[in-house]
């Protein structure tokens, strides 16, 4: 039930771009994305509810391919504040509970 994320970790220089992927073996109703900084609670970024939907949040956007049961998070022109661990959460079709992925640790350096 837990979605799988890749990569597990990535290091970027300020201004560089990154893509984080999230995939599930089950048909998905929706995908959530959260960012968690060290020692803090996860913070909501966005929800994608429809297949093929793309949403944006500042310079962070995401897509959801329902057929492939995948979602990708795009971070463009990264800033130091983007550092943290990114989690996707998936809700399967016909279900109501949110299962979080394995996490991707993103580090942005000057």
């Amino acid at each position: 039930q837990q979605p799988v994320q890749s990569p597990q970790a990535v290091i970027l220089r300020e201004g560089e771009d990154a893509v984080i992927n999230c995939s599930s073996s089950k048909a998905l109703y929706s995908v959530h994305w959260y960012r968690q900084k060290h020692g803090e609670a996860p913070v909501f970024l966005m929800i994608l509810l429809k297949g093929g939907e793309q949403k944006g949040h500042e310079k962070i956007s995401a897509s959801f391919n329902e057929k492939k049961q995948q979602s990708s998070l795009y971070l463009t022109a990264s800033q130091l504040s983007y550092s943290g661990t990114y989690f996707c959460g998936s809700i399967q079709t016909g279900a109501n509970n949110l299962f979080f992925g394995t996490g991707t640790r993103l580090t942005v350096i000057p």
Partner: protein
Amino acid sequence: EAEVAQSPRYKITEKSQAVAFWCDPISGHATLYWYRQILGQGPELLVQFQDESVVDDSQLPKDRFSAERLKGVDSTLKIQPAELGDSAMYLCASSSGTQGRNSPLHFGNGTRLTVT
């Protein structure tokens, strides 16, 4: 901005002792979740409430864990007896809407449990 309140912030207990965590969700949020997060891993759902009813507790180790939300507002998660493997961050979250499917989760700051 309204927040999810959790207490205590930190808890150290000896194995075989009982421990309890409290959560007060954002006012008006019908859905409440308890997650356990082991260091370096994603949050693992333990139990989900819709108002005072349990929607999903399939991942809750029921031989030692219990959760309640008697009046559909605040909630308590209990562990008895605690084991060394229970050391983790316990996160409470709430969301609005029907069972939270289309709504973001708002997390509290968590309770860091250490079992010695």
